[in-house]
């Protein structure tokens, strides 16, 4: 049946086998929960190499989006790549205090806004990105306030702006 119980077949299995064979030790975790869905976790050090392999060798040319997530002390960045319907989510964790990653905009130009969005909302610094100016947040948004971090609850953000709203 359609949504929940689809067994991985064809292209999905081929990609899974290829990843195991070619990237083996670089992959921390490889999950294929159903057909056309692959989750790959890598270390930060291996990230760029794996991203290059996926986009160049395996032809994952389309990026659906980039998800950023606060993972207690770590910031998880998930690249949702697509090839003819197979959605591969490449996951990498970076320390929240020193959240930097190499950009992938040279590999996939369409990633340019998604990296800016994650930069805005979670403070991940994408090295060599052409323009990391604010995309979603206002130009005068205070430094260090990253709305999608769990520590920044709605109440805390409200308090932060309590003084400025009265002006």
């Amino acid at each position: 049946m359609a949504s929940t119980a689809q067994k991985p077949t064809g292209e999905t299995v081929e990609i899974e086998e290829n990843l195991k064979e070619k990237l083996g030790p670089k992959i921390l975790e490889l999950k294929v929960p159903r057909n056309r869905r692959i989750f790959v976790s890598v270390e930060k050090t291996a990230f760029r190499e794996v991203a290059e392999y996926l986009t160049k060798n395996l032809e994952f040319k389309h990026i659906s989006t980039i998800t950023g997530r606060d993972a207690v002390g770590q910031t998880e960045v998930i690249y949702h790549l697509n090839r003819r319907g197979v959605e591969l989510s490449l996951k990498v964790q970076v320390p929240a205090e020193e959240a930097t990653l190499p950009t992938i905009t040279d590999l996939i130009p369409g990633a340019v806004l998604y990296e800016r969005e994650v930069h805005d909302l979670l403070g991940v610094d994408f090295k060599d990105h052409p323009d990391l100016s604010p995309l979603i947040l206002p130009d005068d948004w205070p430094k260090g306030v990253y709305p999608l971090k769990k520590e920044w609850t709605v109440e805390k953000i409200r308090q932060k702006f309590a003084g400025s709203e009265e002006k």
Partner: protein
Amino acid sequence: MSEATFQIPVGPQHPALKEAPENFMFNIDGETVVDVKARIGYNHRGIEKAAESRSYIQNLYLVERVCGICSIAHVTTYAQAVEEALNLEIPPRAKYIRTIIYELNRIASHYLWLGLAGHEIGFDTLFMYLWRDREIALNILEQITGNRVTYAAFAIGGVRRDISPQMVKNAKDGLNILEERMKYYKKLCLNEPTVLKRAVGVGVLKPQDAIALCAVGPTLRASGVKSDVRADDPYLVYDEVPFSVVTYDGCDVASRVLVRCDETLVSIGIINYALDHLPEGPVRVKAPRLVPPAEVVSRSEAPRGELIHYLKSNGTDKPERLKIRSPTLGNIPSICKFLVGGFVADIPIALASADPCFTCTDRMAFVNVSNGKRWVWTHEQLRRYSLKWHQQS
């Protein structure tokens, strides 16, 4: 930039009509656009953050409000993400009803867009006719769901209302009219000089650029790239229903018009098939309130293109993280690309041709960089300027 270059900020907003105002900074040389930069966020409502403090059931209604026009796309994508995390299979009849509502929503959206495109090129008769006919689609939706815009029709585990035989008959009658009308509008668009002069060769997006910039939906398919989530990554009952993926290779506004005309006809075919093959049985199963830890990527083909929701659950009744990427964001790099090289007077229709959720960029300021002179135009003034410019040329 040469001394003759002007900067034109377009936007940011008119939040009344559509919900995502944007700002575009245009650099122009005479009448030609040489560079475009987009700035979004004027109406960022923090829905992803809000979702983390609401239960899965509350979020069903929250995500419906991400977009007023393609609300059902968000609800479908979200509901199937939660159901996948729950490992819950919804009844076949519910899947068919969801598909019917989804495609009706696409018809209403494409009719709305084609009308707006007519308005942008000064063809307001077309606008009036299309919005009149669009009522038929909204009436069918109202009869099935009880609502015209935000439908509140789905539940985690199925749909909230069943379709009666009378509704099937009424829907089919309405679809016949919609089909006949859309065939006429397509013929009109192919033959009417008012449309052709403003649409052919305007806002060109080459296939290689569309792929590199990760365009989605009709914008991508009008550049000749056959990509549709319904076909590539089937959900609901799209693996059972016969349908074709529409592409045109003109890469311009005209192709985007034709893609949407044909897609409307395809949607009518899908709905008719689904109404004829509606399986018997329940429309809903009971879903647990707590969702076990899981992560799910859910996709669907919204009227404007690929929509993706990423859901991470943590065993509670609230999501750990819900990421939503609506199709318009995916198309902004492409919009910036195809506006370059075009005329200022073509900005409204070219911008509108991607059907972004911010066509109503209301206020525009024009800045002469060399002497600092500045003037402000509303979107309406730019539209009038555009019409006048095209009348004279």
